[in-house]
Structure formats: structure tokens, C-alpha cells
């Protein structure tokens, strides 16, 4: 940060002539504009905070009251033409607003405060309502009780958190712990192994693409792909139709119901996540391996280190910071994963993890419980990310 300030010229230098005069002339401009931005934020928060009243109609679009084709097209488009039109309208509207703002602040006498409002204002509005206030409200809701209609109904202390840690949900916690430890471990192990194996070979690019590909497709699609691996056992006497069971049958084992059986289901889903994340781990680690200075490797080679020895005592220590960053990044991704369990888990409590438990609570309008799950995810993620940032700083210092 300090670096930027040193580099950037002083504000006085950056402005047009007569700086002293100008600040006086327009000193009301910046507070006024930031005041408006503040009002928008307060308005948004007020909207989201005041309780939903029966019979009160929405501000912009009300299904019952706005039968006009323009509002219907803008808010409930149904045909291809309407949808494309509303998309174009949205982008054009955005461009017009931003263009107007930039045009207004692009003149010589505008004080820095107003210029800043143009550059930062929209972001400040979006983030303070969309993330900051929303986050705080969710934390508060996690201490509240909700009726069946989803309306807050008094505070209940830690009741929602008690629910997160007891009953069926203990399995959710255990599964989540398995996810955040096993997925990063295996993804990094396979990713590193593969990165070393294909490094500087003739088919490196193609070989990497094959492993990296699952990162690009959606987890929903991955769920479908793996569905045909984990198909239930065939009736006795018939051929297996799921790949996993066919392999088990081939080596003489008993075919399993992979998804519905108690601990198996979680491991089966973890394998899918490992399949997705290995490509990411491999790509980042491969880049780190290539960045290891050639002279270090050369020196070690002259000292007689080869193969695994060279890898474990020279290469691995030099990419250690990257390994840690990849481990933590994948761990966070695993904790937040919702799609795989939602699509493949068969909605079974024994396969459940925190992110999906959150969604299940949200669907049945248990906003308090959903809030508690979200806060637990947040609490687990935060120290990991702080650790991650520290590691990155260390890695940068070492460079």
C-alpha cells in the first residue's frame, strides 16, 4: 500500500492550475455526493431490514399491479426476444449510467472527493449492502427464531447453534471435517505427482489439459458424470452397469450401493471433488516447480541427488509455500462446495456437509438455522484465509 502512495504524485500536482482557489469553490461537492451515496446505502438497508408486511407491494415490479408489457418484459421476460432485449437494456443502462458519471467527473475543476465518488461510489454501495450489511444481518438472524412463513419471531440465544452441533447435524460436521482434510490432501498429492511426472515431457500441454478439464465444467455436470460411475449394484445375475461396481466385481468383491451406504457415500463424493480440484492443484504446483531456479537443481545434481531424493530434499522445500497455499485454497473450496452433495448426495443426511445443510435449511425457511450454518462456515473459513494470506506474504518475502 505504502508503495502506491510513494509512487503516486501528490494531489496538488495532479490537478489543474489554481488548486487553492478551487478547493474553496467546490468544497461542498464531495460531501454532497458522498451523502447521496450514504443515503442510498441507508435506503437499501432500511428496505432489507423492515419486516415484510402482508399486502405491501414491491417498489419496482408487482405482478398483480403492473400488467403493462414494458414492465412485464423487463421483469418477467418469457420469449427469446424479450430475454435478449432485457439483457441489452441492462448492459446499455449500466453503460449509460457509468458513462454519464465518468463524463461528469472528467473536467479540470472537479475535486478529488467527487472523482473518487465516481470511481468508488457504485462499489461502495454494492458491497456495503450486498456483503457487509447482509453478513451482519445473517449473524443477527442466527440468534433468532423464525415462524413457518419465514418471519423473525424473537431471539432464542444459541438455540440455532445448538441445532448445528447436535442430532443429525453432528454427521454434517464430521463429513465437513473429512471434506476439508481429505480433498486438499489427495488433490495436492495427485496434482504434485502428475506435475512432476509430465514436467518437460513431449506431451506436457495435452497431458495437463486432460487433468485440468474438470475444473472448467460445472460441478453439476461433474455430478452427472460420476453418477454413471457410482450406479447401484445390478440385480443378481445381471452385468453391472456402474463403472465402480463393475471394477469391484472384476476383482471379486461385492458390489456396493456407493451413494446410499453410510461412510461410503461421503468418500464417494469426496473422490468427485478430488477429481475436480486436482487439475487446479497440478497447474499451480507445476508453475511453482518450473520457477525453482535451475542452478539450485543443478547444484543438487552435482552433489549426486537424483529422482525422488532430488524431489523431496530440493524441489519440495522450495515450493513449500505454494503447497500450503494450494492446500488451504482447496480446503476452503471444499468447505463451500454445495453442488456436488446437492446433485449426487441423494439428499441423505449421512452424506450432508455444511454448505448443503445451509441450503436445506434455507429451502424450508428456517432462516435462523441457515444463518447459523452460514456463520459456522464463515468462522471456519476466516482463520484459514488469514493463515493463507500470511503464507503468501512470507512466500513473497522469500522471493
Amino acid at each position, binding site marked *: 500500500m505504502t508503495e502506491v502512495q510513494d509512487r503516486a504524485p501528490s494531489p496538488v500536482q*495532479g490537478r489543474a492550475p489554481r488548486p487553492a482557489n478551487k478547493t474553496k469553490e467546490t468544497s461542498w461537492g464531495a460531501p454532497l455526493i458522498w451523502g447521496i451515496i450514504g443515503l442510498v446505502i441507508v435506503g437499501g438497508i432500511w428496505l432489507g431490514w*423492515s419486516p415484510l408486511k402482508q399486502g405491501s407491494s414491491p417498489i419496482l415490479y408487482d405482478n398483480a399491479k403492473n400488467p403493462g408489457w414494458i414492465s412485464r418484459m423487463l421483469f418477467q421476460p418469457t420469449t427469446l426476444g424479450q430475454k435478449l432485449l432485457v439483457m441489452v437494456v441492462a448492459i446499455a443502462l449500466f453503460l449509460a449510467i457509468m458513462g454519464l458519471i465518468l463524463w461528469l467527473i472528467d473536467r479540470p475543476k472537479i475535486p478529488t472527493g467527487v472523482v473518487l465518488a465516481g470511481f468508488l461510489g457504485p462499489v461502495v454501495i454494492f458491497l456495503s449492502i450486498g456483503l457487509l*450489511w447482509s453478513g451482519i444481518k445473517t449473524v443477527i438472524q442466527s440468534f433468532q427464531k423464525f415462524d413457518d412463513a419465514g418471519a423473525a419471531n424473537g431471539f432464542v440465544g444459541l438455540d440455532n447453534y445448538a441445532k448445528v452441533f447436535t442430532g443429525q447435524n453432528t454427521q454434517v460436521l464430521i463429513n465437513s471435517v473429512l471434506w476439508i482434510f481429505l480433498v486438499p490432501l489427495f488433490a495436492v498429492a495427485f496434482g504434485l505427482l502428475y506435475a512432476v511426472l509430465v514436467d518437460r515431457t513431449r506431451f506436457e500441454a495435452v497431458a495437463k489439459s486432460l487433468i*485440468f478439464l474438470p475444473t472448467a465444467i460445472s460441478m453439476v455436470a461433474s455430478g452427472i458424470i460420476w453418477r454413471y460411475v457410482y450406479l447401484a449394484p445390478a440385480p443378481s445375475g445381471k452385468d453391472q452397469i456402474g463403472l465402480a461396481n463393475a471394477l469391484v466385481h472384476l476383482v471379486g468383491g461385492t458390489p456396493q450401493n456407493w451413494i446410499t451406504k453410510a461412510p461410503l457415500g461421503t468418500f464417494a463424493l469426496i473422490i468427485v471433488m478430488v477429481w475436480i480440484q486436482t487439475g487446479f492443484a497440478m497447474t499451480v504446483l507445476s508453475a511453482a516447480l518450473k520457477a525453482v531456479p535451475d542452478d539450485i537443481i543443478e547444484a543438487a545434481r552435482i552433489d549426486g541427488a537424483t529422482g525422488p531424493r532430488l524431489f523431496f530434499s530440493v524441489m519440495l522445500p522450495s515450493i513449500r509455500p505454494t503447497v500450503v497455499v494450494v492446500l488451504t485454497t482447496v480446503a476452503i473450496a471444499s468447505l463451500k462446495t454445495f453442488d456436488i452433495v446437492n446433485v449426487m448426495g441423494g439428499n441423505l443426511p449421512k452424506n450432508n456437509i455444511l454448505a448443503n445443510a445451509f441450503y436445506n435449511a434455507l429451502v424450508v425457511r428456517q432462516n435462523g438455522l441457515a444463518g447459523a450454518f452460514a456463520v459456522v462456515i464463515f468462522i471456519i*473459513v476466516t482463520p484459514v484465509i488469514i493463515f493463507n494470506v500470511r503464507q503468501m506474504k512470507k512466500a513473497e518475502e522469500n522471493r
Partner: protein
Amino acid sequence: MTAVVAPVPAPELQLSARKLKAQQRASDAKTKLSSPWASGLAILIAILWTVPTFGLLINSTRSDPAPQQSGFWNFWNGSTSFTLGNYGTAWSGNGGTPLYDFIINSVVITLPAVFIPITLALLAAYAFAWIPFRGKNILFIAVFVMQVVPIQVALLPLLTVYVKVGLTNSFWSIWLSHTIFGLPLAIFLLHNFMKEIPPSLIEAARVDGAGHVKIFLKVLLPLLVPAIASFAIFQFLWVWNDLLVALTFSGENTAPITQGIQGLTTQFGSGGSTILPPAAILAMLVPLAVFLSLQRFFVRGLLAGSVKG
């Protein structure tokens, strides 16, 4: 990680340096890890990672009873034959909502949900990098910290706001949500790229009398094109592949392809149907095309997004 290549003083020189290194790497390759064990292991992993997708591709082209009666490794044996008819059935929805409806929705959702946050983030990143002001550090740290907030934490309160405004079930709520959730990372990354631009360039523009807007539009934007492309692809795939935001905010007319596929899985239970495989393959086509054609940018965006953020 230096994704922003400065104004390119001598392209031929850079290129030849890269070529030299490539040649050296190639010669290294002959001495390194040519053991058959290593190659065998690499091939084994590659096969393990490819077979599931390959299986789905085969299943999507098998005629009707096949996916329920035999594994994909039987290909088109016996009672099954090769067909592309499943794709037609999936595309037109077989009585349900046609797949192309979902794909249209995905397109309509994704384009603004990539364009808007990146534009806003570019402006904010510029302010953080090149406009000195009081409280900048605190504000920047606040934005950085917001990357930590899991989107789960923000979904429910946002839903209340959308209900009050009347935006539920419309594209607007989805666009706004993706914009909000994409901003912190976008600002952080683009800020890092902006800082790598040599200050002398901005200084020169300023001496010529350009204000912040002109410097942003005329000096920085052209230099940031690679960085923008990287993040745009990252955000594009994120939005296209998203399920949680879609499930929470979309209505029956605005559901994207991921939600469409998810609906199919609940509709068809655990059995194999002939609609699910082609539908999943069709859903993958766009991200795969992006991935294969723009892989360089994709990798760069992912590296910057994870290692730096």
C-alpha cells in the same frame, strides 16, 4: 505471476528468449524422467481422470434402454446402437422445459454478470491504485476482507431486499447478486495488475493534462486487456457453472442450465435415462469451448485468483 506485460519494448528479443528456454527445456526432457515407470504412472492417472467423462460421452450416444441395462464400456453392442437422437430429445426437453431455454437463460445471465462487475472493479481498482486519498488503506483492507465472506452468509438478507423491490425471479436479482459476489476478488486482482503499470506512464499522461478519467480510459485500459481477459474468463465460468445463486434467486423463466440439469437429476432419480447424459454434455460445451480456446488466459486468471488472493 507478472501477467501484465509492459508496453513491449522489444518483442523479438522476448520471443527469442522464450524460444531459447523452450529449447533448453526440450533438451532437458531427454535426460529427465524418461523412465517407463514414470510414463506409465502418468498415463494411468490421465486415464483415471478421463474415463468418467468419456463414459458419459458414450452413454449419451447409446439408443434407448442401453444406459440402464449395460455399462458404457459395452459401447454399442447387442441391443443398443449408436444414435444422436438423444441429443435432439434433450435439446427439445422431451415434454418438459426445453434445454435450449435454460441455455438462453444462462447466456442472458452470464454476459451482464461478467461485464458489470469487471467494469465496476476496474474503476475501483484504479481509485485504489492511483488516486491518493485519506482512509484508502482501511477501505482497501475492507474490500480484501470481504473476499472471505462465503456467499451463503449474504444470500438470505439479499433475498429480502429483492422481494421488497420486486426483483425476485427476474434476471435483475441474479445479475446484481453475481456483481456483488464477484466484486471483491475482481477489485483485488485488477488492483494488483494496475500497480504493476510503470508510474512514469501515468505521470506522462498527467503532465499532458489528462485527468483521472482520461488516464483510466486511454492509458490503463489498453494495457490491462490481458488481465481483464483472464478475470473475465474466471468470472464467466464461475457464473455459468453456478448453482447456488441460481437456485436461490431465479424463477421458472430465468433458471440457467445448471439448474435445468439439477432439475433433471431429481426428475429421473438414480436410474440412468437417455436424456441426462446428452443434457450434461450439452451443458459442458460452452465452458469447454472457453477452456480449450482460451486456456492460457484461464490458467493465468486461476493462478492469480488463488495464489494472490
